């Protein structure tokens, strides 16, 4: 089976977010980058499916030139091919989905017909919750979101996700779009040979035209600061006595 997995480059924010002076972006001068957590699992799932069923996996991202780093991370984990939709600035969900759908159509015309398109349920940064669904509609494919367990058998997908009071199971025929959540698997670490292969692999580059955004970012701002001044209960084991008093005071231990 042939699998396309779509990822997004996001900063590793650590403990505190700082904005650029124009309030358009997170100040990333001192930050590293990764892909959103759900998508790390989407890549792992794609690689596992290809290991089990044969075929190939392609990792795709829409983002700046530097997002090639995240594609090479995907290749290092075992993806076979990589596609970079190179853009300047942020795209909204509708524009992103349209560009991805076009790649799928073009690849199909060139003979690579994807059985499965994998996405993360939502990106860690923008959190629009809609790129996968919009791609599914553009290509007239069925779509299940938020999947935490996926089985493929004879061209059919059984997808399980959390729902009200338990789990919902969906069954659908491939080709299909599935968006996954972290927890569906535990992503592997890249191997040294994987890293070397990824370094040498070629990346297909496309420069799509940015459509006018329907959801237009004006500025970012940080929520009102609520930094607390912690009460120090003591150093090391010496803090335990005072902690017990606090537990009683706040009612988690009987007085």
């Amino acid at each position, binding site marked *: 089976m042939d699998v396309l997995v779509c990822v997004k480059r996001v900063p590793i*924010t*650590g*403990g*505190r*977010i700082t904005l650029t002076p124009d309030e358009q972006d997170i100040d990333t001068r001192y930050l590293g980058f990764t892909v959103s*957590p*759900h998508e790390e699992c989407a890549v792992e799932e794609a690689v596992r499916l290809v290991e089990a069923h044969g075929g190939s996996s392609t990792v795709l991202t829409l983002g700046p030139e530097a997002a090639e780093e995240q594609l090479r991370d995907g290749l290092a984990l075992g993806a076979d091919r990589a596609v970079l939709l190179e853009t300047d600035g942020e795209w909204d*969900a*509708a524009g992103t989905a349209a560009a991805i759908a076009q790649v799928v159509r073009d690849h199909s015309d060139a003979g690579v017909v994807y059985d499965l398109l994998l996405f993360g349920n*939502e990106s*860690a940064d*923008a*959190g629009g*919750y*809609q790129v996968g*669904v*919009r791609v599914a*509609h*553009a290509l007239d494919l*069925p*779509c*299940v*979101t938020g999947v935490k367990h996926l089985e493929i058998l004879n061209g059919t997908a059984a997808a*399980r996700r959390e*729902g009200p*009071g*338990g789990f*919902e*199971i*969906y069954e*659908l025929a491939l080709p299909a779009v599935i968006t996954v959540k*972290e*927890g569906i698997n*535990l*992503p592997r670490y890249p191997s040294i040979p994987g890293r070397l292969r990824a370094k040498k692999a070629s990346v297909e580059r496309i420069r799509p035209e940015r459509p006018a955004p*329907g*959801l*237009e*970012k*004006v500025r*970012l*701002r*940080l*929520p009102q600061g609520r*930094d*607390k001044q*912690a009460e*120090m*209960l003591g*150093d*090391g*084991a010496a*803090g*335990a006595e005072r902690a*017990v008093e606090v*537990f009683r005071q*706040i*009612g*988690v*231990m009987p007085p």
Partner: protein
Amino acid sequence: MIVGLVEHDGGVASELSLQMLTLGRRLAERIGFPLTALLVGADARPAVDGLAAYGVSAVQLAVENRLDEYAPGAWAACVADLIARDRPRAVLAAGSDRGNEVMAHVGARTGLPVAANCTEVEPGDPYEVTRVRWGGSLLEEARLHGDVKLLTVAPHAVQAEEGPAAGGFSVEEFSPALQEKDFRVKVARREERAAGKVSLSEARVVVGGGRGVGSPEGFRPLEELAELLGGVVGCSRVVTSLGWRPHTDQVGQTGVRIAPDLYVACGISGAIQHMVGAKGAKRILVVNTDPQAPILAHADYAIIGDVQEVVPALVSAIKQAKAR
């Protein structure tokens, strides 16, 4: 009119839907339009009457045999049907898994943009919305375009509040135009969650461990502390990535959101990804060797020291106190 898509659980409107209706009512009042609630499926009927108190003046209930189980495409078709028929100014849903999913389908079907997880909405053309990014650690001010404004309301951005409706209260059932294709994705079956154990999201006390716990075995004293306080153990993302604990224990943006009376955070630095999940905690006690760790900015209490020294000391202090 303004339309609010209401979710329900066993015939009772969900808390997040009531929050959404509260924001929807304020929006409707400002632009002088009535608020209509849309519910899907005959099993939503019992949820209808209670909506009048939240300022809903009309209920549209989509009824059809095939709407017996949740099908995101069919729910979106019901919304799209109502949009085509009544041309509302805006359609709102809760920023729940389901609300965000259905509105994504509605946006894709209609070609309209969707603003997910809004905290504030200023009407006009375009709408000016504030929405959450990074699970609420960052806010985005944005312009939402489109003939019909589609948006979801971030959980707990607004408190559900009753309020008066514009005009009376009418209930109408309609049979939406649905195609076979709208049911390609439909719940085939359900599994109950295993009962018994206190769930992380509902626990009154959570003892969380991060990299500073040191190893999978290092969680033993944390387990003991949790048990003594009638709580459960959670962990940070790095711990699940290392394979020390299952993902179901993970507190964070991509894990479980907790809301205990007390969160004891042991050896956790306080990455945004983690703190998003712990935001609902009433009080946080931090155990950390680093007095400069970012998590201290979220702490009510702190003990500076090594987890493997402090947590066993907490365990024995509690045991002594209980024996007294």
